[in-house]
Every structure is written in structure tokens, then in C-alpha cells.
């Protein structure tokens, strides 16, 4: 049985339903919520403000610091123990790299712009939802930006390229009864700078052939454009009452 029809009936380039809202944390300098299916990310930006600890200050310009966190009740199974684990640390760093190319902090030496990303419910695609929310929150905070960043996971399920994998698709082999079930699902989160089409986050779990990777990245860019339109709409909605 090949994966010809997606579990939830979506077309291959369809995302799950998306809701985006800017300005959800009044105390923060900028904030946004991005929900895709059952994954909800909230991002809040504080700064530019003084960098602590001091040894991390950069006299050449401001530092962008991300902090990714899953709320304890947001996991698919057991309660997630609070506090940063290795996974959260790594995701925080790759989020910084994904967002850094679009923000200009040269006017703020020794300062930090903190981006806090919290997940209140998860169903795969959390780092992408986090990056997408964080880009909107940075814009809402009035940080100088060259572009937004839109992120989505693409991948291969049973050799079919699909966009925005959900939890069931990531675990396709646990469900499917096909003889090829040892073939891993490829899960490829990508972050795209929509203006230039450049890719600022790229990771992969699984196995993929060179030509398939290219196909997946093209799909990622295509879907990111759609997400970008939603981001712009949410930002405009915040400032047009």
C-alpha cells in the first residue's frame, strides 16, 4: 500500500489549517501566535535591552537570542519535564541562525534581542511554527528587518513528497503495513526568506536521494510563499483597525 492519499485528506502541498495573530503578549515589545493544525507556537520579543550575562555582549552589534520551550502539557505522550533539555537548546540555536539573516542589530552594540518561543500544544512541525511566529513577533517589535522568515517541514512519506508533516506522517512506518516499512520517513524542516528564496534553516531526519532533496526544497519554497502571505496579513491586521 503506497502513500497515495494523506491521512487527513490533504493535497501534497497543502498545509494544515493555519491561524496567525500578531500582538498576543501585551507586556512584550512584540509578539505573535502561529497555529498550524494542532501545533501552536507563541513568540514574544523583548529588546533591544541590556545583555546579561555581560561576557556575552558584542560591541559590534546586538545579539539575537532565541529560547525554545515546550510547555509541560504540550507533548504527545508523557508530561515534558520543564527546563531546557538538549533538544530545546539545539532548536534554540538553529532558530537563531534561521532568523539572524533578516534582522539588522548593528545599531545596538552590547544589547540583546530576546525571542521566547513557547509551544502550548504540539503535533509535529514545532520549530517551523516557532520560527514563523518569531519572525512576525520581531516585525511587531519594530526590529529592522530585510525580510520575514517562513518555515515549514517538507518530507517524504513512502517516497511521496509532502508538505507540513503531522505526527502521524512522521511516524508513518509505525502505522503502515507495507513491506517497505523499513524505509525511513524523511522529515526536512526548512526556513525560507521569501523575498530572496534563500534557505536559512535546513535539517533532516531520515534518508533522501539527491534529486528528491531538490524536489522537497522546491516544495518548501512554494509552501513558504503561502505562509508568508498569511504572516503579512496578520501583521497588517494588527496595525489597521
Amino acid at each position, binding site marked *: 500500500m503506497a502513500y497515495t492519499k494523506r491521512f487527513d485528506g490533504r493535497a501534497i502541498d497543502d498545509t494544515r489549517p493555519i491561524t496567525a495573530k500578531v500582538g*498576543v*503578549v*501585551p*507586556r*512584550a515589545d512584540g509578539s505573535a501566535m502561529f497555529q498550524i493544525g*494542532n501545533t*501552536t507556537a*507563541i513568540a*514574544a520579543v*523583548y529588546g533591544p*535591552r541590556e545583555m546579561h550575562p555581560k561576557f556575552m555582549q558584542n560591541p559590534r552589534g546586538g545579539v539575537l537570542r532565541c*529560547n525554545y*520551550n515546550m*510547555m*509541560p*502539557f*504540550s*507533548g*504527545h*505522550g*508523557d*508530561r515534558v519535564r*520543564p*527546563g*531546557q533539555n538538549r533538544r530545546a537548546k539545539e532548536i534554540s540555536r538553529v532558530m537563531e541562525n534561521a532568523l539572524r539573516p533578516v534582522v539588522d542589530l548593528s545599531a545596538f552594540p552590547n544589547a540583546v534581542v*530576546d525571542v*521566547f518561543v*513557547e509551544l*502550548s*500544544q*504540539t*503535533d509535529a512541525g514545532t520549530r517551523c511554527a516557532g520560527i514563523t511566529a518569531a519572525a512576525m513577533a520581531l516585525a511587531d517589535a519594530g526590529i529592522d528587518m530585510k525580510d520575514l522568515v517562513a518555515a515549514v517541514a517538507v518530507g517524504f512519506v513512502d517516497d511521496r513528497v509532502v508538505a507540513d508533516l503531522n505526527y502521524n506522517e512522521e511516524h508513518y512506518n509505525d502505522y503502515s503495513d507495507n513491506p517497505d516499512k523499513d524505509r525511513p520517513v524523511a522529515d526536512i524542516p526548512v526556513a525560507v526568506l521569501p523575498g530572496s528564496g534563500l534557505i536559512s534553516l535546513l535539517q533532516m531526519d531520515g534518508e533522501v536521494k539527491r534529486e528528491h532533496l531538490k524536489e522537497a526544497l522546491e516544495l518548501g519554497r512554494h509552501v513558504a510563499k503561502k505562509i508568508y502571505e498569511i504572516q503579512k496579513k496578520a501583521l497588517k491586521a494588527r496595525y489597521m483597525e
Partner: protein
Amino acid sequence: MTESLRQHIIQGLDKNIRLDGRKKDDYRKVWIEYNVSNSAEGSARVHCGPTDILAGVKMGIEKPYDDTPDRGNLMVNAELIPMSNPEFEVGPPSDWSIEVARITDRGIRESKALEQKTLCIKAGESVWSVMVDVIPVNDAGNLLDMAGLGALAALGVSKYPGKKENGKVDYEKHTDKKLQLACKPIPVTVWKIGKHLVVDPLTEEEKVAEARLTITTIEDGTIVALQKGGETPLTVEEIDEMVGMAIGVAKTLRALLE
């Protein structure tokens, strides 16, 4: 800076006007959304003006404690994430987050709202544990009361997850069996600023207050938990007045629960 703010706030309170125009015993508008996280067994989002907190319940199966072999476990935790307040930091729990969690815990535990015997699967071997996490998204004051209300709201809509044959939790399956709550303990904190008593403080009021008393009451007005905070002592008359205020506010808040 704090002293001039304090004087300013007290001058207002002398005329019964607070920084946002409220009277001393006015509560901001409170509203509750339910089941805001599909990953949790039950969840709620509580708003009090711009204050916005999430509460979620996860359930697991554990071995009971030796001294309570037929009782399930209850754990309440508050994660004061830096997203919600520029003064909160990343890292281990602060004293404040521990106090928020413990006051919330005490109300639920001491009122026996959660009948822990109903969580027993097999005495001495396995029991359900109920883990409540309260997380502010935006802290614009009054975290203490909202943590308690949020925890109770989330518990009230929580449903047991499935159970596998090997005795492990099956989170893929959801049952229709709800957690049993015997009563609704509502914590209300009354804050003392100068000679004035206020409820539902703003962040600025929390900063300048010299004492506070959290009074948790159930439906019939019985007090099930108390916690005094702040360095300034209180008179018996003040405490009595605070309890009266808290019982009144608790009635209003309880009526908002599903």
C-alpha cells in the same frame, strides 16, 4: 523610584482610585477558555484583563507513595516563563514561582477537591498521578489568584487517557471519564498597600504592597488554605476584613467556572 510610585498609588487609594481607574475592591473582567491544548488531558486559559495564563493537566500512571498506597498523586507546578514578564528569567524555578505553585497546590489538596482515592488503580501498585502546570503568557498582575482559578478550570475539564493492557498509559486514546472534583476551592489574595486593602493587583501594586493574604475558600465559605506574604504584620481586624473580601470575590469567580 519604588517609593515615589508607592506614594502615588497611596494618594490615589486615599480617594479610592487605582492606577487604572478601578476601586479598591474592583476585579478586572475575568473570562475562561477551555481545552486550549489538545496535547493535555485538560486545559484552560484564564484572562484577567490583560493578564493571561494557561493551565494544563497531564496524567500518568505511577507507583503510589508508601504512606498513601491507595491514593493517586497530585503535583502542581508554576512555570513563570520569561515571555510573560520582562523580570522573569530562564533557569531554575524562582522563589516566587515556587510560592505560586505551592499556594495553588494547597487549596486543591487541603479542600480535598481532587479525591485522591478515586485515582487508585491497584492499591500499593499503581495509581494515576495528576500533574498540573500553570504558565503565564502575559503577567499583568494577579498571577496568584489566576493560577488557582486556571488550575481548577483545567482539572474540571480533564479526562482520563486510555490504558494499555500492559498497564501503561495510552495517550492516543481518550476516554470520556472525567476527573472527579468534590468542590471548587478558589484562592483570592487581598493586598495591603499603606492602610488600604485591594484585590486583583496591577504589577505596580504588587511591587509596592507591604503584605498580602491569600484566602482559599470553598462553596460554603469554609476557609481551606491561608498564606500570608510580605514583611508587614497584619491586625486581627485586617485579617477578618480580608477574609470577608475574599469570600465575596471567590463567589463571583466560582460562578465563572463551567
